[in-house]
């Protein structure tokens, strides 16, 4: 039994792939909805937010996993919060100093990562009880599962709400009613309620494909 588990064993790979589908943090665990509504009006912030969450969640999981045997049980939530907040502030400071444009892009979202329920959820549920490497994979996997949903929602909201994708025009100008065409952007898509509806539709599609996810 002293054999070391290979780095990319089936179990470890599942840590990466499960959150993309059957244990997706947004559609199955329904965590991180707040930021999913706030940043998905356009595709670009959705992508940037996903990458930032991935960086923070990956590192936070590793740090908490390294500390897991020393953390006093009664203040573990506070310790987790301090680790997350410190990481997020470090990332923010470094971005401001070296890639100011990116930092301007992200503006408040970097700070918002601190309050993302997925991060604390993963620290509490996984990193506290597992070794650093699986914890890192779990962090990256969950952030990817979060990111996929953000990007899908951002894609539809930007396309239908503004007629652009990643800032580039997709719907030709001549299609618009003001230019004599037949098409009009759906203003509702840029407002946050439509993000909730979009997430709802994704949940619906996912559960009709996989009936095991349906609760009684």
């Amino acid at each position: 039994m002293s054999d070391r588990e290979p780095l990319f064993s089936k179990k470890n790979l599942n840590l990466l792939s499960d959150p993309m589908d059957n244990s997706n943090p947004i559609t199955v665990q329904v965590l991180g909805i707040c930021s999913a509504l706030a940043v998905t009006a356009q595709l670009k912030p959705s992508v940037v937010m996903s990458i930032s969450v991935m960086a923070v969640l990956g590192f936070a999981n590793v740090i908490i996993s390294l500390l897991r045997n020393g953390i006093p049980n009664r203040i573990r939530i506070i310790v987790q919060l301090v680790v997350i907040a410190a990481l997020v502030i470090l990332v923010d400071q470094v971005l401001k100093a070296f890639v100011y444009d990116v930092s301007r892009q992200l503006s408040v979202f970097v700070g918002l990562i601190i309050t993302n329920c997925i991060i604390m959820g993963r620290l509490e549920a996984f990193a506290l009880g597992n070794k650093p490497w699986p914890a890192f994979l779990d962090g990256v996997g969950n952030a990817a599962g979060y990111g996929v949903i953000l990007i899908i929602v951002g894609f539809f909201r930007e396309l239908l709400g503004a007629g652009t994708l990643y800032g580039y025009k997709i719907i030709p100008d001549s299609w618009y009613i003001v230019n004599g065409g037949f098409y009009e952007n759906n203003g509702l898509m840029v407002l946050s309620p439509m993000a909730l509806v979009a997430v709802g539709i994704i949940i619906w599609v996912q559960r009709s494909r996989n009936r095991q996810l349906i609760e009684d």
Partner: protein
Amino acid sequence: MDSNSNVYTFIYASVMVILVAAILSITAINLKPLQDKNIEVEKKKNILASVSIPATAENAEKLYAEKIVNSYIVNSKGEKVDGDAFVVDLKKERAKPVSEQNLPVFECEVDGSVKYILPLRGSGLWGPIWGYISLENDMNTVYGANFDHEGETPGLGAEISTDMFEVPFKGKKLFDQAGKFVSILVAKANESAPEQHKVDGISGGTITSKGLEKMLLDDLSAYEAFFNSKK
């Protein structure tokens, strides 16, 4: 040592907090000069953007030195006051009564004629918004505008910093035909105003749009005496 004992918990918490505080302060202090430099370059870029000179982080300083021919501070009576216009902190100025405010003016030469650039600062929905507006030398026609914000909602209020919103400011008038100061209305679909005094607001970004309208009115009206003295 028992990791659930009170002593251990206290020591753990104290060491952790001191350690994290030290790491964060050291990072913040060491990165401060770089960050300040970025903010200064960004400001120069924004000033240049209001007269439609595109600048990058690399050439902003050089272009600024070339194009901005003069800068000074005026008061609400339109008289010049001593001081460096570039370092005026608008946040502090706006907290004072209008008669005591330092009002910065930047003069920029574009194609042989002088444009006047005025800084603006107000509030959007979530936080401060600011910008620069440039005027032709008739002190009435807008030559260009550039707006920015701290944390307006992307896709909604944050659209104030896009060309789609900024470009229509060009050619708008601050004074009506009778010479009365009216500023520029950022209109919702159901609001009507003479075409030369209005730009379209942002759907879904009403509070930001109206904050911007108030910023234009408040900040530009402080310059009224200065405008009249230049006419």
